[in-house]
């Protein structure tokens, strides 16, 4: 009881000094220059928050422990299952971790522009770190408007998965390379029942289902998020082309038919996944699916390839995203935190071990080329994509993923046939996104 009343009193105090609280502590590093690195034998402890859990968390902990090779007296506490809300709450409460890992790149613009994550540029310059080691796309999703506030920890790369048996059955010997081919192959591998309902869909065009998300598709259609002058640039021939491709396939199946088929499919990370169940012949997905398929559906004979592109010259392009890490505002030991981040981002052995452990793509060129990286035929597709230099990351804005949601929503009403004028609709989405960015004032 006594404890409780204290909490209540604290409440009042907090309410009164709201703004004081919000201003928070820990301006020590921030813009004023980098905090000194710890000495080699210094005793210090670091808290790391990540959103990993279970087996993956153990692997990441192992990677964190390898830091002790450089700083034998460091102590690292790794807390899993911490999402972006928790990170924000920690910063807000003046009790953040030293290193925060975020699973999505959605909030990076927010983290950088609000100062939630400290600027890393001073450290990069002081230590002469070669950012060229990091593939361009990965570099782009770890900074916002030139403010580098995060570093990458492995990445995900998206490509085409195809069921070899189903393609062969339809007389197709190689995976599609252009979206026109994809369209053709999708039609040929589709099987319909006597009553017209779908039994097998060659390629599922339903937006926002499984990995069918606009940012993941966009690079292969050459679609860009921004106009050269920094406005939302969705009203472009490329975006329209992507949506028309999608619509053509939807119309081939018949929207109602397709919806009925899709509604019966299993969830994305379950053994009921349509690809595992041989209900779809081709799909777009990340490299991690190879591990799922080998584990849960060993009878599915599948191959991987770069996802087809609208223009042949684009082939080999793809979408990438990944885990990011930063030093939150108010971190107790930013100097040491930077050393840990540097270690995880650039130490080849650590990256390779972790990539092998959780089946993700390494995020430095050296690690990608490392012979110890376990690469089978299907995984190789993604490693090759990552080294191609043609990948594209998430568009970074200060409005979370509101822009991604806006175009996703638009694509779903478009596929339902509810959009009469495609370009006008896209211009309207542009306006919404620009309005929201203007409102955020950053």
């Amino acid at each position, binding site marked *: 009881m006594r404890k409780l009343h204290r909490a209540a009193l604290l409440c009042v105090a907090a309410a009164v000094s709201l703004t004081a609280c*919000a201003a928070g502590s820990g301006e020590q590093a921030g813009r004023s220059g980098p905090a000194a690195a710890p000495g080699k034998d210094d005793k210090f402890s670091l808290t790391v928050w990540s959103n990993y859990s279970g087996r993956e968390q153990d692997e990441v902990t192992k990677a964190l422990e390898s830091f002790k090779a450089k700083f034998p007296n460091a102590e690292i506490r790794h807390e899993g299952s911490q999402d972006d809300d928790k990170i924000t709450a920690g910063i807000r409460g003046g009790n953040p971790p030293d290193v925060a890992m975020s699973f999505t790149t959605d909030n990076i613009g927010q983290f950088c522009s609000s100062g939630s994550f400290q600027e890393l540029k001073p450290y990069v310059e002081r230590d002469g770190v070669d950012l060229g080691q990091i593939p361009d796309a990965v570099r782009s999703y770890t900074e916002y408007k030139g403010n580098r506030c995060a570093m990458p920890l492995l990445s995900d790369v998206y490509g085409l998965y195809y069921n070899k048996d189903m393609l062969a059955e339809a007389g197709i010997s190689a995976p599609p390379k252009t979206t026109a081919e994809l369209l053709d192959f999708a039609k040929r591998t589709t099987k319909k029942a006597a009553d017209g309902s779908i039994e097998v869909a060659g390629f599922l065009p339903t937006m926002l289902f499984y990995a069918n998300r606009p940012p993941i598709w966009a690079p292969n259609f050459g679609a860009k998020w921004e106009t050269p002058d920094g406005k939302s640039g969705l009203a472009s021939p490329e975006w329209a082309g992507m949506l028309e491709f999608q619509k053509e396939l939807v119309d081939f199946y018949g929207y109602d038919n397709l919806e*009925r088929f899709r509604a019966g499919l299993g969830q*994305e990370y379950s053994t009921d996944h349509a690809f595992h169940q041989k209900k779809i012949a081709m799909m777009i997905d990340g490299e991690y699916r190879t591990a799922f398929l080998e584990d849960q559906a060993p009878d599915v004979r599948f191959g991987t390839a770069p996802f087809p592109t609208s223009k042949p010259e684009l082939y080999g392009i793809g979408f990438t995203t990944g885990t990011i890490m930063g030093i939150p505002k108010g971190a107790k030991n930013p100097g040491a935190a930077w050393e840990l981040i540097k270690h995880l981002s650039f130490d080849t052995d650590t990256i390779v071990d972790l990539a092998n452990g959780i089946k993700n793509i390494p995020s430095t060129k050296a690690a990608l080329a490392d012979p110890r990286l376990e690469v089978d035929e299907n995984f190789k597709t993604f490693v090759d994509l990552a080294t191609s230099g043609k990948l594209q990351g998430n568009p970074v804005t200060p409005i979370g993923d*509101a822009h991604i*949601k806006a175009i996703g929503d638009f694509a*779903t*009403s478009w596929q339902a046939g509810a959009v009469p004028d495609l370009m006008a609709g896209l211009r309207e989405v542009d306006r919404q996104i620009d*309005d929201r960015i203007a409102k955020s*004032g950053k």
Partner: protein
Amino acid sequence: MTATLERVDVARTAPAKGRSRARARHRLTVLAFLAPAILGFALFFAYPLVATIGFSFTEYDLINPPEWIGWENYAFMFSDKLFLTAVYNTLWFVVVLTVARVVFALGVASVIARLKSGVGLVRTLCYLPSLAPPVAATLVFFLVLRPNEGPLDALLGWFGVEGPLWFADPVWAKPGIAAVVLWVSGDLMIIILAAILDVPQEQYEAAELDGAGAVRRWWHVTLPTISPVLTFGVVNSIILALQLFTQAVVAGSAASGSADVTGSTKVLGFPENSTLTFPVWLYTQGFRYFDMGYAAAMATVLFVVSFAATALLVQRMRRASHQEAS
């Protein structure tokens, strides 16, 4: 007003000095009884309510100090397409749920009230689903209403009817959620049932002597007598519909086929934002996009609306108690 105080608890013959001391003691007693409640009300309602209104005029991301921006958040509502979608969805629930819930509960209660045997059993069976957490109830319906393969579609199939896609279809997702809410509205049923059973038997007998049949007795005797309870049902349903959050979030997440933990912006409102209710969009703005100012502005709007509903209830309650007194 002080007269009330004296009249009640102070001995009538007490001398003036004792009276004022007793009054002071009485005040202290009242205060002691109410102290936690007053503190709690101030901390968890009064302060946050004022703060919400205050925040609604600011740009606030939880990290940097709030920044005063005037009416901007409110103005933005009109260009935020999803705000309007959320308003529409919630209004849909307010209208449909209020009517459906009261009519449904009244219907079920009327049937149970006419049972001669097995009242307790049927009442228990009808109430049982209400014990399920909303999350569980929604998942249950997700399975029961599963297109093609769920039991309801199987049942409809026997009659040669092809069932709708329910949670996967923007047209049917809201009715699906409404079905979940109706399934767990056992409490309203029991309230209405009790009110029906409370209707004095003589009134029925009088009506019967006048030659009124069962339907007319129900219309002319039962309904008017239990109308205060129906008013409660209406207001309670409005409030419930305004708050609708859990069922919408869980249904959208389950039907989208995504394994994302609920609350992810990727699946909120699925399909096609048809389940994006006002509280869901408010939550997304505040706790996913960290736009606390805008979320607070939305909360203020929600407050004004629910305040109006509450005022309606209070007014009715007052009128009812006046009638009782007279």
